[in-house]
């Protein structure tokens, strides 16, 4: 059988392009065929490379089958088991990263119990002094990662520490002492080893590793273990591998074919151009020196004369790897053994006139120093390297979208560009993903500007709402549990499905929850756990839920009837078939409360697993494959975690926060199975060793400080000590430089770099990433500064900037929608944009209520926006309130007075005068205010009591005035509808609350209640005209329709008695109002009601007075604060520019003060309490628009 094995050996293929490497690998595969059914083993570092490899194999031979892609770490442990036998080596190391965490956690919690080593562990003990278990867990994870790294990169240290020698051996074998206060690392490691069973000591990674290498080196070709080894292992596209792993593969090559396909940017021997080359001592050198010059003899100061600057700046990691490989690589022998024509696969020098990008790539390949660069400008239309500067990630993406459309549409000599030829790499995809979806997702499939796209590398927790919700639930014991968070739970489909809530009903449920007074907290017990017992249970979810259920049970309880059950004020909006939504909320709240009860106490990992499974069953019902996949992943992570703990014999109680972190952290493990490239352009994070070729490579978000990314290494990482550097060590900084180099080399047509080079706030200059600066500097030095400037485009702040549409501008955009904005005014008069005329309008709205008409009069531009355009400027309408009321503003007070009066009067209206005389009004009002308090409409505690007293004082005189009016007019009359018809347009007002006097005195009245004030505060009973607009319209209508009687307006501060108008003049005025309405619905009319009234009532300088009223004075806010007015007429001069303001004011609005002077008599309430509130911001129409 052994004779059938393929000829073993070590082969390193170097090439500057992955395609070249692949061709030779494929040729080898074809030449040396594996046994049937034996899988071809490839080691790759990322899903991207793996996927590319499989596609390439499939394209070459029509099928890609029996291919086994593995991560080097996975492969290594699997190889141990093959060599030593599965009986000898368990499935996982007793000290692998995940188990180590739990061993360490146990040790760290007990640390203080050991007085002997107090000195050594002092640094840790002081960090953990708070006793916070979460802190302890995080530290355990950091240390576990570190020890894992040591096991891979510094096994010799661990060996020494285990033997009690607390020293660090450096690259040359010299033993050095620990840096100050770091010797705990050795002691802790000894304790970790002490937790192992005696037989497990032999199973930790460094020991197994040495045994395996030993066995491989000693065993002969006919050894039975050889048959268990894979016949060929191909390491594809890696630019970094730990030295011990290289040694293992080197040993394996005695029995198997080990093929390295190494992306090497340069054809010459270039190791010496970067510092640190003295540490690389491999005697063999694979590649020839450039121009026969041995650079190792050159002083460091001289090297820049011989080196390519970008390769020198970015290539350290790649250099280390290539040089380490040389130790195992006998190139000549390998070439002969595998019978290959070429093992150095570099493109031959092309003619010098390629694109700028190709020139750069060639210069790197040929190791051309900067002095030998051509120093001439590239072709003017060469866009192979471009820089785009925008103001924010969203703008960067908008610019990218435009530029990609250009690129995709540009005809080319070779194959046309497809979206899947484009890759966009960013430092952190999770930060960019929402912006990507917003910008690239805005064009539907049928839009010619639609570019298909895929986003990969998203963290599961950051992108999956189900997991985000789960994370929230696992933090419930520390959460305020606000209304918006609760509502958000129902927006997760899997949770909504579990509680049988239709997604369409979620907004209604949210409205109910808000209306029932839910603000934060689950129930009183949860608040107590947060230390907020004093807040009681008002505004908690349970409070709101009780109100809803009570409301469903008893309906809207009539005022004052009977006792209140357990102080629960019913919320009466719930009814009909939708009431089962409340049932869903009840189940959810119940589940959460239950979870809080048994989910808060610490327990051991197995207990947590049980609880988490119950939680999942309780909250989640999968709605599709994605949900099922999430649940599988959750279950897998949970099983993984309990396995880890079991392996570490960890069964101590841990709190929820630690358990949940440990569980959910398991979701983000890297998997080779993740899909990378789809049919569209690929958005991904900059990940090392994914240098697969793309026609267009875009780097976005290349801001200084964002890239190179910040390293997350702890500062006690001993590998990072400068004196302990060894070749092959990884550093985040080097990683990011290597990735920049790979990105530059893997672009075939275009390298596109963009960053937020201007502050979005103040437009100040923001520097790009240092790496981008280096690239730009290199281009400027090697070609010309002008070449860089010509390839750098600064974009304006906004996508709709005029600069995109100016003739001859260098900027282009495909967002043609914005073009219309910049077409001069004449262009607007297309049929779609012709202003509507009164004739268009008149027939369509045949019926207007007096209230609508009054609203229109109060603010004609608002009426135009809302009724004609459907535009509402209401900034806060969407957000749910998460806080209970702390104070009441003028608007709140207004609305509360309205409610109290309405609820107090509703029963009283039907009462006889005798009964009315008997009733205790204060008590009736107080019971209504108490209801408000129980419903949570007033602040809690003392401030609430103050507010309710204040309300009582405001309402009492009004109700008293109402009663005295009712006693004077005891007979109830039927309501009538007063209407006025002008050529089909009808104005209507329903006049209810009409009462007549005694038989002897048949005079009648209709009563209106106004919750605001109607008198000027300073003036002697001077009526505020803008508060009476609706009453004015109603009065005109009543008079025109010849409905008898006075009107009584009972307001906060006075009662107004209003005489009817002469019918003829009333009709005339109504006609004028309809005329105004017709105008107002065709355009925003330049009228503002308070300003107009000021203009016609001012005693002198009417224009000045009006201007102050509009723009505001020293102590008053102007009417222009209204968003609709501000949008159309930002200042007084724009309001009055065409003179129509003055006309409307003096013809129409002047009628109101005249009417007040001749028809209205005011009587102040006898005990009118001086109001403490600000005057209302709006007119007297009953509705007040809701900008708080």
């Amino acid at each position, binding site marked *: 059988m052994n004779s059938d094995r393929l000829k073993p050996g070590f082969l390193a293929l170097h090439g500057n392009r992955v395609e070249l490497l692949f061709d030779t690998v494929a040729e080898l595969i074809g030449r040396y065929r594996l046994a049937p059914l034996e899988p071809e083993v490839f080691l790759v570092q990322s899903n991207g490379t793996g996927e590319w490899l499989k596609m390439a194999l499939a394209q070459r031979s029509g099928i890609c089958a029996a291919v086994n892609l593995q991560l080097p770490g996975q492969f290594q442990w699997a190889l141990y088991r093959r060599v030593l036998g599965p009986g000898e080596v368990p499935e996982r190391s007793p000290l692998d990263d995940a188990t180590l965490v739990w061993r360490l956690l146990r040790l760290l919690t007990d640390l203080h119990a050991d007085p002997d080593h107090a000195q050594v562990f002092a640094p840790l003990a002081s960090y953990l002094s708070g006793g916070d278990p979460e802190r302890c867990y995080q530290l355990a994870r950091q240390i576990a990662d570190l020890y894992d790294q040591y096991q891979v990169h510094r096994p010799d240290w661990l060996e020494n520490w285990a033997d009690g020698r607390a020293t660090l051996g450096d690259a040359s074998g010299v033993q050095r002492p620990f840096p100050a206060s770091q010797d705990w690392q050795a002691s802790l490691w000894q304790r970790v080893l002490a937790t192992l069973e005696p037989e497990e000591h032999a199973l930790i990674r460094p020991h197994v590793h040495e045994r395996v290498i030993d066995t491989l080196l000693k065993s002969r070709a006919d050894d039975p273990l050889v048959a268990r080894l894979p016949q060929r292992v191909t390491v594809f596209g890696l630019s970094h591998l730990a030295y011990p792993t290289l040694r293992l593969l080197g040993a394996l090559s005695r029995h198997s074919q080990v093929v390295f396909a190494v992306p090497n940017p340069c054809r010459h021997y270039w190791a010496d151009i970067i*510092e640190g080359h003295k540490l690389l001592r491999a005697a063999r050198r694979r590649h020839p020196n450039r121009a026969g010059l041995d650079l190792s003899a050159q002083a*460091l*100061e*001289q*090297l*820049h004369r011989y080196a390519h600057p970008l390769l*020198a*700046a970015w290539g350290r990691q790649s250099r280390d790897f290539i040089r380490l490989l040389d130790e195992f690589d006998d190139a000549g022998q390998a070439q002969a053994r595998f019978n290959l024509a070429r093992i150095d696969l570099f493109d031959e020098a092309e003619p010098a006139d390629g694109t700028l990008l190709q020139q750069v790539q060639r210069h790197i390949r040929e190791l051309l120093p900067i002095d030998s660069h051509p120093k001439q400008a590239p072709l003017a239309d060469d866009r192979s390297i471009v820089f785009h500067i925008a103001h924010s990630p969203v703008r960067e993406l908008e610019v990218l979208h435009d530029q990609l459309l250009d690129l995709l549409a540009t005809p080319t000599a070779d194959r046309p560009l497809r979206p899947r030829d484009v890759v966009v790499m960013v430092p952190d995809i999770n930060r960019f993903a929402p912006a990507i979806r917003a910008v690239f997702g805005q064009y539907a499939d049928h839009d010619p500007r639609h570019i298909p796209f895929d986003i990969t590398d998203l963290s599961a927790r950051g992108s999956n709402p189900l997991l985000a919700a789960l994370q929230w639930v696992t933090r419930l014991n520390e959460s305020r549990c606000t209304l918006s968070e609760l509502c958000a739970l129902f927006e997760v489909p899997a949770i909504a499905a579990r509680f049988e809530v239709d997604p369409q009903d979620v907004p209604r449920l949210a409205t109910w929850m808000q209306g029932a007074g839910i603000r934060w907290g689950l129930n009183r017990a949860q608040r107590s756990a947060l230390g907020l017992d004093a807040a009681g249970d008002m505004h908690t979810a349970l409070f709101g839920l009780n109100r809803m259920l009570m409301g469903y049970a008893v309906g809207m309880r009539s005022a004052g009837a009977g006792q209140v059950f357990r102080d629960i004020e019913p919320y009466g909006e719930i009814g009909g078939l939708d009431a089962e939504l409340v049932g869903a909320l009840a189940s959810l709240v119940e589940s959460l409360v239950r979870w809080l009860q048994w989910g808060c106490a610490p327990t051991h990992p197995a207990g947590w697993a049980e609880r988490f499974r119950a939680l999942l069953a309780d909250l989640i019902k999968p709605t599709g494959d994605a949900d099922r996949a999430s649940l599988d992943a959750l279950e897998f992570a949970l099983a993984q975690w309990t396995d880890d703990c079991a392996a570490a014999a960890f069964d101590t109680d841990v709190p929820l926060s630690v358990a949940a972190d440990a569980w959910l952290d398991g979701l983000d493990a890297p998997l080779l199975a993740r899909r990378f490239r789809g049919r569209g352009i690929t958005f991904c994070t900059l990940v090392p060793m994914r240098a697969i070729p793309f026609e267009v490579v875009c780097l976005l978000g290349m801001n*200084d*400080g964002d*890239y*190179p990314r*910040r390293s997350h290494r702890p500062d006690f990482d001993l590998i990072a000590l400068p004196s302990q550097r060894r070749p092959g060590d990884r550093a985040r*900084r080097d990683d990011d430089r290597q990735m920049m180099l790979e990105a530059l080399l893997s672009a075939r047509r275009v390298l596109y770099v963009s960053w937020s080079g201007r*502050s979005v706030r103040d437009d*100040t*200059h*923001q*520097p790009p*990433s*240092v790496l981008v*600066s*280096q690239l730009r*500097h290199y281009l400027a030095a090697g070609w010309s500064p002008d070449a860089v400037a010509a390839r750098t485009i600064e974009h304006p702040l906004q996508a709709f900037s005029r600069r995109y549409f100016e003739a001859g501008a260098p900027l282009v955009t495909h967002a043609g929608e914005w073009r219309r904005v910049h077409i001069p005014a004449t262009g607007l008069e297309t049929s779609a944009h012709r202003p509507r005329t009164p004739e268009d309008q008149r027939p369509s709205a045949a019926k207007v209520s007096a209230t609508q008409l009054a609203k229109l009069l109060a603010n004609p531009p608002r009426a135009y926006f809302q009724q004609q355009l459907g535009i509402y400027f209401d900034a806060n309408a969407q957000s749910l309130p998460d806080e209970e009321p702390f104070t009441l503003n003028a608007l709140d007070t207004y609305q509360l007075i309205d409610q109290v009066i309405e609820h107090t009067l509703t029963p009283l209206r039907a009462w006889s005068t005798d009964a009315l005389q008997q009733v205790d009004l204060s008590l009736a009002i107080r019971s209504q205010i108490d209801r408000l308090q129980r419903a949570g409409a007033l602040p809690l505690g003392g401030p609430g009591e103050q507010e309710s007293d204040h309300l009582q004082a405001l309402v009492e005189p009004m109700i008293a005035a109402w009663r005295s009016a009712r006693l004077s007019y005891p007979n109830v009359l039927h309501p009538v509808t007063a209407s006025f018809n002008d050529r089909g347009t009808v104005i209507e007002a329903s006049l209810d609350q009409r009462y007549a006097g005694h038989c002897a005195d048949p005079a009648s009245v209709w009563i209106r209640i106004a919750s605001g004030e109607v008198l000027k505060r300073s003036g002697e009973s001077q009526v505020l005209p803008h508060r009476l607009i609706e009453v004015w319209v109603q009065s005109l209508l009543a008079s025109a329709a010849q409905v008898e009687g006075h009107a009584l307006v009972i307001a906060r501060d006075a009662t107004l008695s209003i005489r009817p108008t002469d019918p003829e003049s009333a009709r005339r005025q109504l006609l004028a109002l309809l005329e105004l309405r017709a105008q107002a619905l065709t355009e925003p009319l330049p009228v503002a009601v308070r300003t107009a009234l000021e203009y016609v009532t001012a005693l002198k300088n009417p224009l000045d007075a009006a201007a102050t009223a509009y723009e505001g004075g020293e102590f008053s806010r102007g009417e222009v604060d209204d968003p609709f007015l501000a949008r159309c007429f930002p200042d007084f001069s724009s309001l009055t520019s065409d003179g129509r303001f003055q006309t409307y004011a003096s013809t129409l609005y002047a009628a109101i003060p005249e009417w007040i002077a001749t028809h209205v008599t005011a009587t102040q309430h006898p005990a009118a309490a001086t109001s403490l509130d600000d005057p209302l911001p709006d007119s007297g129409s009953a509705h007040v628009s809701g900008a708080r």
Partner: protein
Amino acid sequence: MSQVLDAYGLALSGSRLIEASAGTGKTWTIASLYLRLVLGHGEAGEPGTGFQKALMPSEILVMTFTRAATRELSDRIRKRLIEAEQCFRGHSEPAADDQFLQRLMAFYADSGLREHTAWQLARAAKRWMSARCSRSTPGASGC
């Protein structure tokens, strides 16, 4: 005791406070001092005014307020390093009013010394640690 600032001669030891109004060149001075730190300049010229050895960017912490200011400072210092490197390589001349750089050039007059200096500057620029910002953790922000 206050004294007139001389970026070229200021002793690089102990703690020093530089006070000046806006726009008088504090950033410029910091960039110049940075240059001296990277070169280990001083101990040969006037003993006691330099740092005991040439430093790498990873060994120097520069702090300021806000992300924007950190970025700007970082960018300015790095540009200053590159400007000086170009001068020492002989690719360009120091600006006429740049006394500091002229004196520094005069100090490292020997061509071998200049080459070494340029290499030190280039190395510092190449290993530049970029601006980073972290909120209110003393010692953790800087560039």
